[in-house]
């Protein structure tokens, strides 16, 4: 059961119950819809990007605790950062939750900051897509795609 505690860490549960930046955005200049047909998780990510800086980021939708907390924490950490940083963080986050960080950079997880909380997902292969859905959607929005599916 300790793996469960690693998965459902306090910070994840807290964000899933009280998601940050959980709202629409009227002046978004980029947005994309992400969908996980397997479990029905469904989010829209809104971005206001100016000169490569993420001025504002928000999301709406519904899904499991992992996907919602991931979207919430992602929005917090990316706000006022650059899009390049966002893509870089996505790469690191993806490595951490798929358990691929080991053997590569020993500090890959460490450099994730608060997102380290999601490292426990690696022990739950069926939940990796929940954790990465918001990030895939963000990536699609930054590329100019409008819909992304993780199945």
């Amino acid at each position: 059961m300790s793996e469960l505690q690693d998965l459902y860490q306090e910070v994840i549960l807290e964000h899933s119950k009280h998601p940050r930046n959980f709202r629409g955005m009227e002046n978004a200049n980029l947005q994309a819809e992400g969908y996980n047909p397997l479990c029905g998780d469904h989010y829209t990510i809104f971005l206001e990007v100016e000169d490569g800086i993420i001025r504002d980021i928000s999301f709406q939708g519904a899904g499991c605790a992992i996907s919602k907390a991931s979207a919430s924490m992602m929005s917090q950490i990316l706000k006022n950062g650059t899009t390049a940083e966002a893509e870089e963080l996505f790469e690191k986050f993806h490595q951490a939750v798929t358990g691929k960080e080991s053997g590569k950079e020993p500090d890959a997880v460490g450099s994730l900051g608060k997102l380290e909380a999601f490292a426990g997902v690696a022990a739950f292969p069926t939940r990796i897509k929940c954790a990465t859905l918001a990030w895939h959607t963000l990536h699609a929005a930054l590329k100019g795609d409008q819909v992304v599916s993780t199945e």
Partner: protein
Amino acid sequence: MSTTLTAFRTSTSSGFDIERVRADFPILEQRVHDLPLVYLDNAATTQKPRAVIDAISNYYLSYNANIHRGVHQLSQSATDAYEAARKSVQTFLNAEDAKEIIFVRGATEAINLVAQSYGRQHVNSGDEIIVTAMEHHSNIVPWQMLCEEKGAHLRVAPINDAGELLLDEFEAMLNAKTKLVAVVHTSNVLGTVNPVRRIVEMAHTKGIPVLLDGAQAVPHGGVDVRALDCDFYAFSGHKIYGPTGIGILYGKRALLEAMPPYQGGGDMIRSVTFEKTIYNQLPYKFEAGTPDIAGVVGLGAAIEYVNGIGLSDIVAHEEDLLAYGTEALGAIPGLTLIGTAKEKVSVLSFVLEGIHPHDIGTILDRQGIAIRTGHHCAQPLMQRFGIPATARASLAVYNTAQEIDALVAGIHKVKEVFA
């Protein structure tokens, strides 16, 4: 709830013994995450008794050969076993003739066969096909594909909040343009048993044929296709303790005779020249290519296994479990059962306030409890209830009241994690 347990039927006068049934299923000995397996995902697929596993293994060990064309002994043995299984299915469904039993890959392929063969022959532009709001995708998409090709319309008969078909509204939808009614016999999400006899009567009054999707119905009750008078009946072997990859299409002989083949190839022909091919007779006309012989043998063994226990005992046991489970789950604060039809089988779909089904599934899994979470291949039904997904515990002959207790304890644990 524990008082109900003492009154629980563990064996019946007719000899139903749950411990002996459980001993027939080797996989139930498995441990998951170092805990005893509590398998409650039977609507997805059932586990297999040793009799089925042995029948498949024995086929490959002692008489593996191709059927219907060999002069040698093994081919004869394989053909005999294959056709004996067809007889078992015929008897099981009370079909008039073994020729009405077509082996297919599963209920999905059975429905596709009818859509592509019967449907393409009879459905034209402006025609209508009627389904219900509780269909599995496998009884929606083949008809959508047909409708798109033909310019026909798919119409959906509504259901009430308990998950029961609104029969009057269904009847009012039947009209001269209706070319087929395709209805699920028992819902995989809600457990609802549809009044299929009445549905067939209503449709037949207007000369409309009816296909019943029986994937979830056959494991939980006797199906008599002649009493139902349905025109087509589809089910999958793996939901009735048989192997995956094998299923049945039953069709009334006159309809099947008049239908064009679904696929071309070996075994479905009588003679072939480059100018003209003469098709084989029923049922072979619809069984192109070397079939899943081992699967057929396994399905035959599964049906014999079910007959050996007795469907009435299976139904009685599952009804007890359903009543016990409905009460036990219903007593959990914040839990809502989805699917409360008066006539239902042992499926318990539920949602927990503030907790997504996917999280429920993960936390139960770590307690050794296997349930299904998600939309259950019935997205329109999820939309009808305004929910993205449900958690679903579905029960089979080998499940016990203790396993329901484990589920209840598991759900309390889920609530603790999210407290």
